[in-house]
């Protein structure tokens, strides 16, 4: 469960900042949780740095279930990042 091909999704202002709706990535070894994935994403360029800047209210879902930074990620997982929900 170290390096894994992941399907990533971005919504709302995270989508706008990273500049894409979805992508498939192969993170390096050591990226095994949502928290470590997010650290890695932050270093991928200015758009990602802006989307995942410390202090921003970023939420996550792994395989369409809300997740926390400690949630493990496995090969083939769908991982989504988004702001706190505002529907209704």
């Amino acid at each position: 469960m170290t390096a894994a091909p992941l399907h990533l999704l971005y919504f709302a202002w995270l989508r706008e900042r990273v500049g894409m709706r979805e992508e498939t990535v192969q993170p390096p070894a050591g990226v095994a949780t949502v928290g470590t994935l997010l650290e890695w994403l932050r270093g991928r360029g200015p758009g990602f740095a802006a989307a995942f800047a410390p202090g921003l209210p970023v939420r996550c879902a792994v395989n369409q279930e809300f997740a926390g930074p400690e949630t493990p990620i496995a090969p083939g997982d769908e991982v989504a990042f988004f702001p706190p929900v505002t529907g209704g």
Partner: protein
Amino acid sequence: MATVRVQQADFDIGAEVAAVTAGRTDIGGTGCFIGTVRETADGRPITAMTLEHYPGMTERAMAAIAEQAEARWSLLGCTLIHRVGRLTPGANIVLVLAAAPHRQAALEATAFLIDWLKTRAPFWKKEHFADGAEAWVAARVEDDAAAARWGGGTAGRDRRTMAPGGSG
């Protein structure tokens, strides 16, 4: 059991109530909530609102919320319809229906459903202001408080902190 839909098109309130109640004689009360787009946001005029969602997860989250309500209040019918896309002031956004043997259950379940929908279903609103500006709506503390009064913990709820000492 429950009817759960995400759609661009408007919904027909009378038809949805009929779908839940027609031919049934065990329902004593049906509660309903209809959310609509207001012409102002925090006092600033808006021309439209765009609703984005997470296809797949949205339907799952809505079904889970409906299932909770059905179990808690022994509902005889439950409908959740949420619109997405560009909506102008006056347009319908969301419809919640809860039918039960008695009114208390129907009305409580209706309040529960809209409170949880607002905090547990992956929808995001962007407001388009009359002056050309646009902004994503921030989550409201009041909505979290309203949702929390029903208990249920954080399962099925977006987490409050993504990374300790870090990203939010």
